[in-house]
């Protein structure tokens, strides 16, 4: 029980203090899990991050589930995940309640306008730097451009783009694998 509470507390703190989404949490998780508590070795942590990023879902939740499960089975996974999710859950509800209470306020509307425009630009930059890292060769370029055109211009459900990417990736891998063995 003590260890379950410990898992919960550590992930609660990580959930509470990282602004900017799941990827920003990874260095903090690594410090808590590898350096402070020695639950995982450096190599196991690398595996965990690779797995968390290649599986669907919230990356921070994937990581918390994996570590909790490794440490204390399903209950460990449950407490770690609850810990990482709870701060967001509470804070978002408080923010919505607060914004509803004050109603229309020109300073807050102005700040939101600024943050919205900045967020949009940060997403453009994120897409550019991820693209620079991933888009090497014709195949990934075609997939990225095709999915952008399908989703942003033709408003095709993003799920189809993801399924198409997965299927085409498997075909590509199979064809490439056959080419290498011949």
């Amino acid at each position, binding site marked *: 029980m003590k260890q379950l509470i410990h898992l919960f507390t550590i992930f609660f703190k990580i959930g509470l203090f990282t602004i900017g989404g799941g990827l920003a949490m990874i260095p903090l998780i690594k410090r808590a899990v590898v350096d402070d508590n020695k639950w995982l070795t450096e190599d196991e942590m690398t595996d965990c991050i690779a797995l968390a990023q290649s599986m669907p879902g919230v990356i921070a939740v994937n990581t918390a589930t994996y570590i909790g499960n490794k440490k204390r089975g*399903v209950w460990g996974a449950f407490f770690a995940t609850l810990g990482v999710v709870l701060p967001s859950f509470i804070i978002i509800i408080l923010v919505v309640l607060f914004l509803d209470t004050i109603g229309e306020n020109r300073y807050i509307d102005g*700040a939101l306008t600024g943050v*919205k425009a*900045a967020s949009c630009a940060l997403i453009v*930059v994120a897409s550019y730097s*991820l693209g620079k890292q991933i888009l090497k060769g014709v*195949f990934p370029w075609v997939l990225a451009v095709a999915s*952008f055109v399908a989703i942003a211009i033709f408003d095709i459900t993003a799920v189809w*783009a993801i399924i198409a*990417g997965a299927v085409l990736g498997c075909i590509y891998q199979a064809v490439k694998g056959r080419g290498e063995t011949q």
Partner: protein
Amino acid sequence: MILYVSLFLMFFQIGLFGFGGGYAMLPLIFQNIQQFGYMGAQEFADLVAISQVTPGPIAVNAATYVGFKTAGYLGAFSATFGVVLPAFTLMIIVSRFIEHFKESAIIKGIFIGVRPVTVGLIASAAVFLGQAALMVPGAGINIIAAGIFGLTILFAGKFKMSPITITIIMGAAGAILCS
């Protein structure tokens, strides 16, 4: 009751197909909340902005926000539970087979195909968000927002400033300039 179930199912689907982290999940969230008529583009932009300045994973913030706005505390719970459940279940199953998983050709294939798609997804998120963040309905481009957009590209892209610092500066700039 139907509302809670549909919130749960909607976010379960988002959690199940949301590869590539928070930004890449935004188009899924946007398309779903529009399709079900829960929110429009303006409120989606508010939700992204609030997620950006509050702690925690963006998809969890989004689920709680949409759930709470449409159906109160139980709605927030249903949506958040939905977005977390696929990841939770899949990770427990997969972590038993991690060695097998690292070698699997199918997993490699999925990874090779889905990673480039996430670039397209994140770029689409920018387009969806931009419509509400940079335009005034019926009046064209919001000049101040466009200026903040341009400066952020410069600060983040060229000078590699931290996203949090930029967000705080631009929030303050918006509060002063737009009020």
